[in-house]
């Protein structure tokens, strides 16, 4: 569903993504793990068109979207839940969702408000008045309203209480079961382990490991020590 091939991204003189390859099968949850600063967020931003790659290719469902501006990537069916949620602070909950609304979406607003009861109660509140957990749910609802084929989630568990992370895991699996292909980028292993069908590990701008959830569990101790521990 989402294919990345030989992706290179530079910020000025620093070479952030150094030939990233990633293949995400449709309807699965692919998690990308890695330490802080290895380029996970840059990869997500490059897919979204917020950062221009210097070379390589990004394709969604066979359509080459490399170098497209973000709004076209979005309309091609890629939704973005950014690190730090980036809720519009002065818009209400309902307005935040409406920004991304499209006609004929499979996720109309009333369906989203049923899926996220806490947002339903706080429809008229401003984004800045929500708790971290509520903001995360809003960021997902706002992405979902565009009826995406692929959803990119960047560090969604950051700063959330364990109970909220569990709810987040439930929602992410539910979206997969509804047919949304999910890319989950995480520094924190817990959420990734709980939901991922496939795990990838990124080190210094490259993918160094790929395995199914079962294989990963068997090798976890070694992999963790080699790539993820400080």
């Amino acid at each position, binding site marked *: 569903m989402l294919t990345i091939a030989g992706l290179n991204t530079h910020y000025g003189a620093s070479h952030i993504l150094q030939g990233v390859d990633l293949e995400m099968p449709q309807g699965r949850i692919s998690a990308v793990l890695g330490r802080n600063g290895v380029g996970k967020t840059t990869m997500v931003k490059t897919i*979204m*068109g*917020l950062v221009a790659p210097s070379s390589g290719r990004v394709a969604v469902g066979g359509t080459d979207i490399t170098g497209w*501006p*973000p*709004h076209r*990537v*979005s*309309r091609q069916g890629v939704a*973005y839940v*950014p690190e730090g949620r*980036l809720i*519009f*602070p*002065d*818009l209400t909950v309902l*307005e935040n969702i*409406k*920004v*991304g609304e*499209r006609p004929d979406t499979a996720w109309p607003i009333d369906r989203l408000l049923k899926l996220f009861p806490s947002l339903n109660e706080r429809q008229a509140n401003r984004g800045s008045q929500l708790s971290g957990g509520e903001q995360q749910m809003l960021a997902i609802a*706002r*992405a979902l309203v*565009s009826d995406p084929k692929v959803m990119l989630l960047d560090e969604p568990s950051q700063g959330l209480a364990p109970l909220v992370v569990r709810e987040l895991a439930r929602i992410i699996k539910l979206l997969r079961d509804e047919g949304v292909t999910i890319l989950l980028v995480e520094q924190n292993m817990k959420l990734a382990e709980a939901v991922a069908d496939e795990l990838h590990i990124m080190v210094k701008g490259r993918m160094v490991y790929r395995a199914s959830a079962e294989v990963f569990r068997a090798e976890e101790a070694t992999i963790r020590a080699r790539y993820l521990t400080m």
Partner: protein
Amino acid sequence: MNTLAFLLTQIVNALSQSALLFFLGVGLTLIFGLMRIVNFAHGALYMLGAFVGYSLTKWSGNYWVALAVAPVVVGLFGAAFEFAILRRLYRRDAHAFLMVTFGLALVVGEAVRLTWGPDALQVPAPDLLAGVMFILDEPFPLYRLFLVATGVIVAVAIWQFLERARLGLLIRATSQNADMASALGVDVKRVRSAVFGIGCGLAALGGVLAAPLVTASNGMAATVIIDAFVIVIIGGMGSFLGSLIGALLVGFVQVFGNYYLPDLALAFMYLVMLAILMVRPGGLLGKEA
């Protein structure tokens, strides 16, 4: 003249002055909020509105046609300018904008001089508004009352547009975080063109409305641009409500200052601005401190 009637006259004068200033300030602040650029050409577009209004009135013999059409013409010109030139500069630093919009102000100024000549041109108020109305036995020029009413209508219309219209929502979202808005499918470039056009159209509306009061003249750009900046700075750059409050403050300070302390009226406006900035460095409703 009794005190109450005098006060009432001055208040209507101040409100009508505020209305004119508001048309300028609100466009300037919307443009700043969205693009983080100061449009130096705003005063020139206000003047262009007055001259286009003059020609339209002459050609059609009807002020109302000018009032309806001139803002649209200037607004489209503004949107086209954004599309053709400003759009290429967003990734550069703010100096490029200052230079380019300042350049536009000069070009528009010269173009107006070449097209309409150096003399101030009379734009007669429509017959309907040429007379006076008596309140407490005092005569009020109908045109000033009309300006106040127009100011209220336009302010409410912009407010409702920003709150309820789809484009209004996208403008607010883009002002708060343009990258996030575009990642949600909003074509930010089109929003910017639209806002620049709307802002220029509002400045022109101010120009057409001011013309019967002050004539259309080459000097009118320079006088109002400073007032417009003061309004935006007082209200807080990017704030719609701030531009409304700023326009009212400046309008009242100018009219009452001119009456009581004519020598210090101009200084008084800056003193008010200074006092506000000392207490709230970002302006009354501004975000940045």
